[in-house]
């Protein structure tokens, strides 16, 4: 009983915080279930007179061609993540184990990509894409997303590979394995945890990106999903029930990804910090 009493204030604060954290989620859901008429005439806590979510969803999908953009973003998230996993794991292996000359400098050059604000390269990349004919192409989008995601991923792989004991590698060497074989048969099989982390973080990042999609693409067949969502808000705030419906609809993939890979998320944090 006394234990419970001692914990009471903690619970009170946590419950209050929980309410604060859930309020936006619940209110957004409520809005997405309303028609514009309900939204205009009701206060925020009132229940909609009829469930409008699916109607809103159908309208939004048809009008803003959300499915095109959804497909693009799925492709960017998948392809970008795969490119990143391959490039970053190889580079991590090289830096930690093959140790080329200036390996730390090379690492810092790549790592600097996460430190600089994107404003540093946004405009020049736009111009570069224009000259290379990459502007408004899916290839261009995959390339820029991969480039942006590599620094953090390299950081994760590098950290992880330093924890793999040297003995295993020595044994492989004695068996006559070259670096390629060692990488594929010794390092890759053990890389499930960092790979899941990189996949989770980078796929989510690519999915959620607005700015690069907005600046580097133009055609509906190239644009990522967040641009479509942002377009609905336009300069006028738009139709709020529609927008909330789109927000919820487009958040489902990342929420699912986090639910599925949650275990790895925690592990990933361990990796990126303790290493």
């Amino acid at each position, binding site marked *: 009983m006394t234990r419970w009493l001692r914990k009471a204030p903690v619970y009170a604060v946590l419950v209050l915080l929980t309410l604060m954290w859930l309020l936006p989620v619940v209110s957004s859901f409520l809005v997405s279930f309303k028609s514009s008429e309900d939204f205009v005439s009701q206060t925020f806590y009132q229940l909609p007179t009829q469930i409008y979510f699916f109607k809103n969803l159908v309208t939004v999908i048809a009008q803003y061609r959300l499915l095109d953009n959804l497909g693009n973003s799925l492709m960017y998230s998948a*392809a970008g993540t*795969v490119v990143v996993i*391959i490039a970053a794991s190889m580079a991590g292996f090289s830096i930690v184990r093959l140790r080329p000359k200036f390996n730390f400098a090379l690492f810092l050059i790549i790592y600097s990509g996460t430190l600089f604000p994107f404003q540093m390269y946004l405009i020049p990349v736009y111009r570069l894409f224009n000259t290379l004919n990459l502007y408004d*192409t*899916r290839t261009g989008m995959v390339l820029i997303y991969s480039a942006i995601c590599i620094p953090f991923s390299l950081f994760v792989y590098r950290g992880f590979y330093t924890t793999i004991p040297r003995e295993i590698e020595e044994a492989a060497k004695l068996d006559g394995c070259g670096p390629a074989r060692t990488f594929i048969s010794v390092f*890759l099989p053990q890389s499930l945890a960092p790979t899941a982390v990189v996949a989770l973080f980078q796929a989510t990042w690519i999915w959620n990106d607005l700015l690069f999609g907005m600046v580097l693409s133009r055609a509906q067949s190239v644009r990522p999903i967040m641009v479509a969502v942002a*377009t609905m808000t*336009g*300069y*006028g705030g738009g139709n709020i029930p529609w927008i909330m419906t789109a927000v919820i609809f487009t958040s489902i993939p990342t929420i699912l990804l986090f639910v599925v890979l949650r275990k790895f998320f925690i592990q990933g944090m361990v990796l990126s910090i303790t290493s």
Partner: protein
Amino acid sequence: MRKMMGLMLCVVAGALLLAGCAAKPTNLVLMHDKGGNPNYVPFFEDLGKQAKAAIGVGFTQSPYPTTDVFQAAVRAALPTSKAPDLFTWWSTYRMKDLIDNGLVADLTDLWNKHKAEYPQGLRDAFTFNGKVYGMADVVEYWGVWYNKDVFAKYNLKVPTTWDEFLKVCDTLKKNKITPMLESVQQRWPTFILFEEMVARQDPKLYVDLCEGRAKYSDPRVKKAFSVWADMIAKGYFTDPSTDLFADGPRLFNAGKVAMIPCGSWYLSVLTGGGVAIDKADIFVMPPVNASAGKVVIMEASPIVVSAKAPNLAAAKKVVDWWMGPEGNAAFAKMLNQYPANAKSDSSFLPASKVNFAKTINDGYQVLNRYWEATPTAICEKAVDKFAEFILKPSSVDTVLADLDKIADDYWATAKK
């Protein structure tokens, strides 16, 4: 793991293959920033199809989420081979620097072809150094939208003099209804009341101010600001954080705000937000100075063709159709707005807008909107200064001094 590696390579190969066959537009591209509110996305979609059906050339649209990125994207694309065939823009000063750099296609021949269908004044607004650039899709005027039910309830009549206008505000205020909406959200709406206040004081002063012949610290400008400040102090406006688009229709519908000064296109924002079409009507704000006379602010929004448009001939063909009575009416009808082409059918317009047009045609002097009438570099900074004044009316002197500095800086380099 090796299997996984193979799988991954397959995904990459597949993705790159997909990426390889990137969009090669067989259609024309129209870039615009009007995907929010008012929402033109379905209208452009429809018009593209109508054009295709009518003349065999259509267009697809590329909406941008925000005006700033849209402007930057257009400016960046114009000198390249990725220039949009068509794009929405603003008239006068907003077009000037694009034209100065030779980025906009000359459409004089099309304007000549349709000469009989357009008033000279509109043509002049699109003319630079004797050439006409861009086409007008719709022309809208700025007034005050009011809630007819609220006016009827308190027995209010549409004001024709400034005193009547103030009386209307006063009655509403006494009945705990906020007379007018005023907003600093989204930045640009701050110029709405600025231009109304100055133009109702003295239309010539407004034009001189926009074109650098008058100072913001001019006593007449100061007087306009003090009238405005007085109204703010009396509580005639909503809190400036009220959003013109998100909050406006709802407050209007609930009768919490009786009047919203905005463009005549705002009707579609109201109806889009759930307001019944016959609940709203519009009038021109009366002059503060009787000598200011009948003045109304105009907004002509052009569709522009890029000089480097990849399909220039096709783009001009679309413009030719769009400028004509049929295409012009088709678009205006979807928007519920005034077709720029005088020969277009406009029978679709709701009563409120028909009457409004009648009033304006009855001897009103037409002025350009501040957004286009003054150089962009001044306007973009000035709207922030107006916001500062709206939020802190006591700062009027520093605001006007800052405005003078902004304008002086611009005109000093522009006249070189």
